[in-house]
């Protein structure tokens, strides 16, 4: 079996190390492996996330608080004083074996990520190793957030797509209220009335959109988790909720997640008296970090975003006189830039306003441009599978349905993991589609629904051609961009392998 242990004592010069030695000797004698973190005066290499993940049980031989105990949550645990470990290491090891055997079901708590997480890196451990190069670490943090977000994208997106298929494009207006093709809907206020008023399609839409509301909070929370472990989750999730509330979209979620992780990492480095150390991860760190991140999101990030949105809306209105296909391309760029974020919202709202005033050309371009990002990325995962992690390839499979349903959010997992390569690629593709859709003179009477409202599209074949062209362009751009970056990634990985582990 494999064990990990932490030893610590009040003075930190004698018992801590004697207990470690005793446990190591006892484990060796019994044919087990053990890694011991000695939290004493001489310092020690901290246990890696992988060592903890692989351990069958944990032994705490400590007379004072174990630092960062939350790393071991969910593991079978044996707790004793340091003297017990010194006097009877063999007994403690035997007890740990029994705990590991009797706790097999509980093991799945720690092990449940393995089936989905056959991809390398953060998904296996859930927590990013210190010691990688800066670029690699940021990418691993983002991937951690993305890997937890993907199930929400897939479940929510597919439910919404099915709702459109069986309920038509008006299902969104029926559930949430608003105007659709000249009819004003009040929306359903009481969830208990939902089935009666909106039918099964309405219920599916509501469940799906609820899952979508969690995209940004989960992304943000688990980026912070990847950076700073469990104490990062609360400030990260709250920051993500605020990013959604201020309309900052997934880019706001990336910011809040990185911010929350950084604040918690900073707070964990503070040296505090032993008495306070026990409540740091549970009370003090989440409290302070949540406050700081929340303040920054509302005051520093929120207000400029609202101002920029107003400015862009005015600017777009002023452009209406120019070449129509240029406007279509521009709206395409905006739709793809942040996929549900503030810029996307401005473009989409512009399309809605055009539709309300009878201009169906613009709405068609906006919808088509919003469909290509997931489609183009899905195509890329098929054409060059090896450029993507397994989780990304799975997100790509869902991307076909999400793209066809005009659920642009299907591209967020890719964009959040690798924004600087993915976002420009999808923007170029969507701009192509937006410009072509206008140039072909296609029209849409529906504000959403994607391929499922094809009956409301004017010149449907040309419309599909515009989408196909943008999809191909997105895919091509991304493959080029990924190749540019691959050398850089290779270097970062090498430096990660040689870098000294750092104490987090």
């Amino acid at each position, binding site marked *: 079996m494999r064990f990990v242990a932490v030893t610590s004592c009040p*003075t930190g*010069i004698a*018992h801590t*190390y*004697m207990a470690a*030695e005793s446990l190591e000797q006892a484990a060796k004698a019994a044919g087990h492996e053990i890694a011991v973190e000695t939290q004493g005066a001489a310092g020690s290499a901290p246990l890696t996330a992988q060592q903890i993940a692989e351990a069958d049980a944990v032994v705490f031989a400590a007379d004072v608080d174990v630092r960062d105990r939350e790393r071991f949550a969910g593991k079978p645990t044996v707790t004793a004083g340091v003297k017990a470990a010194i*006097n009877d290491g063999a007994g403690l090891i035997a007890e740990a074996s029994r705990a590991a055997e009797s706790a097999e079901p509980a093991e799945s708590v720690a092990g449940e990520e393995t089936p989905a997480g056959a991809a390398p890196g953060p998904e296996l451990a859930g927590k990013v190793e210190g010691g990688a190069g800066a670029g690699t670490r940021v990418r691993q943090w983002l991937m951690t957030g993305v890997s937890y977000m993907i199930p929400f994208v897939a479940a929510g997106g597919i439910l919404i797509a099915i709702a459109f298929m069986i309920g038509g494009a008006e299902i969104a207006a029926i559930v949430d209220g608003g105007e659709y093709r000249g009819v004003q809907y009040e929306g359903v206020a009481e969830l208990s009335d939902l089935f009666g008023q909106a039918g099964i399609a309405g219920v599916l839409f509501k469940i799906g959109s609820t899952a979508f509301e969690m995209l940004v909070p989960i992304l943000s929370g688990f980026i912070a988790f990847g950076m700073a472990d469990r104490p990062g989750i609360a400030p990260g999730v709250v920051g993500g909720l605020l990013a959604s509330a201020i309309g900052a979209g997934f880019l706001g979620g990336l910011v809040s997640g990185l911010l929350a992780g950084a604040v918690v990492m900073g707070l964990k480095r503070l040296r505090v008296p032993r008495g306070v150390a026990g409540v740091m991860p549970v009370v003090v760190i989440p409290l302070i970090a949540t406050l700081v991140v929340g303040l920054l999101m509302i005051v520093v990030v929120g207000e400029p975003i609202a101002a920029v949105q107003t400015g862009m809306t005015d600017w777009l209105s002023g452009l209406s006189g120019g070449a129509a296909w240029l406007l279509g391309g521009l709206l395409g760029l905006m739709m793809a830039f942040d996929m549900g974020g503030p810029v996307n919202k401005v473009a989409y709202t512009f399309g809605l306003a055009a539709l309300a005033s009878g201009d169906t050309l613009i709405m068609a371009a906006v919808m088509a441009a919003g469909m290509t990002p997931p489609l183009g990325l899905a195509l890329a995962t098929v054409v060059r599978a090896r450029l993507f992690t397994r989780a990304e390839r799975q997100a790509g499979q869902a991307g076909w349905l999400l793209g066809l349903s005009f659920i642009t959010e299907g591209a967020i997992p890719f964009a959040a993991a690798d924004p600087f390569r993915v976002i420009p690629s999808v923007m170029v593709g969507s701009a192509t589609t937006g410009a072509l859709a206008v140039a072909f003179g296609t029209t849409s009477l529906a504000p959403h629904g994607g391929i499922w409202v094809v009956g409301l599209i004017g010149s449907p074949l040309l419309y599909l051609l515009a989408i196909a062209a943008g999809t191909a362009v997105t895919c091509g751009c991304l493959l080029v961009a990924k190749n540019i970056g691959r050398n850089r990634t290779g270097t970062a990985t090498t430096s990660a392998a040689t870098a000294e582990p750092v104490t987090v």
Partner: protein
Amino acid sequence: MAELITADLVDLDLAGTERAEVTGDLARRLAGAGRVTDVDGFLADLRRREEQMPTGLEGGIGIPHARSAHVTEPTLAFGRSESGVDFGAADGPAHLIFLIAAPEGGGDEHMTVLASLARRLVHESFRQSLHTAPDADAVVELVRREVLGR
């Protein structure tokens, strides 16, 4: 860095039978070797540590120890007692007494030496050799070999 232990810091025939008496004798040897600047202050630090939890271990071992501002170098003083001295272990008095003195603000290098000393203390063979060591020089030799690997 100074030697972890010298022959002056070894007493193979401790006279005292009380914890305070024995640690006092060993602490004065430390002071005599210039490792402790204030014997009373150091003893007070030792007592405080001992009050938190007695340092006696099963198998006849006592390891009174402290990090103290009155210590200049990480040092080990070793005493052997025929009759045994009570250090609070459940199974009886201690016959091998290791007084470990650590400077308050000791750097990692200092602490690493003491950590490897502590690790050796667990080994039965090391204890046995100390039981049978014929003289102070043999003890010093043994510690150097086992702890410092030279």
